[in-house]
């Protein structure tokens, strides 16, 4: 509840800043003109500012061209972009046809259902093993603690590569046990791959919560479980939000294991996207709309949580 309202507050302040930015820019221009009139800056300096800013803006726009392309392509309707003339699209020809194709005619909704069937168990399984482990690693000393942490840190760096390298063995194991083409088994695998990094992240976050709260509660005679439930968990909310996002991404974005282990009727969205880009008969508008609808939950989540996540990360690393 408080986390939700805090995010809402920040999103609101960001929105206000964005809305006001043209006015701010306009005021900046007025000040600059004023400066030139009063002789505080020379026209030459003003020109230098202008040129540098325009050049920097061009660099950024050139860099972001793929994003611009996929956005305009998705709105271009079926016919456009199949012609060779020009890269841009006439805004008058914008249409939402491609989106309606994706939602009502393509296999998007079926893939989406499969993705949800993988992502939700992934998050549940990952949470149920990561949270207790992070607490124990942060607050208790026990046999093998350092070894476990060391192993987790090593794996955080190369998790993706190891996942692919081990895929042959994983596929063989699954095939032996008759567990291929099973969303729940895939969820266990994704959760396992999320364990090292997220456990380490939440552990470092919990390290930053002062022990004195717990000591005070202990002296007051609070039982261990109440301390965890009423002190550690509420204070860890930003850290929990971070690992919530990362475990969601672990299931939502993964492509190659899903493609190898699942059969076509059970493919998740990333596999669906891959199939579409390989199909030469699909117009760019449809491909782009599909891709954007796949990416949009991630983008929305990222921007909603960005400041929250950043505070979670910096907190987790502990300043000072």
């Amino acid at each position, binding site marked *: 509840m408080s986390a939700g309202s805090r995010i809402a507050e920040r999103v609101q302040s960001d929105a206000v800043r964005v809305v006001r930015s043209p006015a701010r820019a306009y005021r900046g221009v007025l000040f600059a003109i004023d400066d030139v009139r009063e002789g505080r800056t020379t026209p030459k300096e003003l020109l230098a500012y202008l040129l540098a800013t325009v050049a920097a803006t061009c660099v950024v726009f050139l860099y972001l061209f793929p994003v611009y392309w996929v956005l305009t392509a998705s709105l271009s309707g079926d016919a456009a972009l199949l012609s060779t003339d020009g890269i841009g699209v006439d805004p008058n020809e914008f249409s939402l046809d491609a989106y309606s194709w994706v939602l009502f005619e393509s296999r998007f909704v079926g893939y989406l259902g499969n993705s949800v069937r993988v992502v939700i168990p992934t998050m549940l399984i990952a949470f149920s093993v990561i949270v207790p482990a992070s607490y124990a690693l942060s607050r208790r000393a026990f046999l093998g603690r350092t070894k*476990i942490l060391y192993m987790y840190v090593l794996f955080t760096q190369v998790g993706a590569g190891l996942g692919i*390298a081990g895929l*042959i063995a994983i596929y063989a194991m699954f095939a032996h046990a008759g567990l291929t083409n099973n969303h729940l088994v895939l969820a266990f695998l994704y959760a396992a791959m999320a364990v090292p990094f997220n456990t380490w992240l939440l552990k470092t976050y919990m390290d930053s919560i002062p022990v004195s709260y717990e000591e005070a509660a202990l002296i007051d005679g609070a039982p261990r479980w109440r301390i965890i439930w009423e002190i550690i968990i509420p204070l860890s909310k930003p850290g929990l939000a971070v690992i919530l996002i990362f475990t969601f991404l672990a299931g939502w974005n993964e492509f*190659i294991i899903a493609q190898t282990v699942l059969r076509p009727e059970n493919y998740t969205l990333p596999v669906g996207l891959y199939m579409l*880009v390989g199909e030469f008969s699909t117009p760019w508008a449809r491909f782009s709309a599909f891709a954007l609808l796949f990416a949009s939950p991630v983008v929305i989540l990222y921007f909603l949580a960005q400041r929250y996540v950043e505070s979670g990360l*910096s907190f987790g690393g502990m300043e000072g």
Partner: protein
Amino acid sequence: MTLLATAVERVRGFGSVPLVERGDAPLALVLPGLFLFSAFLLFPLLYLFYLSFTDAAPQTLFAGEQQFIGFENYVNLLTTWRFWNSLGVTWLFLVTSVLLKIAVGIGMALVLDHHLVRGKRLLRAMVIVPLALPPIFVIAVWRGMFSTARYGVINQAMIAVGLEPVAWLQRRWMAFLAYNVTEVWLATPFMFIIIVSALQSVPEELHDAAKVDGAGYLSRFVHVTLPSIKRPVWFASILTAAASFQQFLIPFVFNQGGPARRNELILVHGYREAFAFNEYGQGAAIMIMALLFIGAFMWLNVKKGRLAEGIHNQ
């Protein structure tokens, strides 16, 4: 995102670990995660190691009839041209993509950190937008842009400026170039964040002093800026080099490591050997060789990146 988080942690450093009490009961809280991790990550790696010494293929493996054949797979590997080609392309890709990432990262950071540029905050926020995009989305979009069959946008642009369209994904070095462009695009926000924060920590006095001595922009860049940002750039390069070495999705999505298997980066090579050509044992051996290098990166990251600090604090 993982890279970014690591970078943030690395920059902030680690504090001490407060421990309330000692005892072995908490091990029970760690065990479920540890079990999951071992069953789905550690055990498969051991099994992979075993498979690399067998003649496993779908028909034998699924009936449990694979034979132990000793080092035959490895001997095969080390004597085939294709494996050395794959390893060579992987290292070449690592070198070219990391150099390009550094160059593009420094270039963008210098442009967007220039004192004459207004609205830096907005521009910087825009540069890190790709961090929010799923990698498979970015790679599929670039695959579409490089497409030759359906008027890919890059070929359209080339026609527009009067050049001949290029069969990007059908020609070896053109495909290699396309991999590099995509890899650099993906890594730019990470490099940019690291380099901008490094640039901002360069003391203004150093630049002023150099200006007084009559140093131009270029010589200030070489003698003042570069030495000051060397360490963070070096650190970022190690992390991003590991990512380049393990790059799988770009070649796989673009053209399956083609044309004619010539651009198979090492992980794609192992994957295709197993799943496209049904040589599981041979594929496992390739993966084990890849793991040796990945392990070396792992060690280097922990060593140079000091990532493991904070473990021993109690």
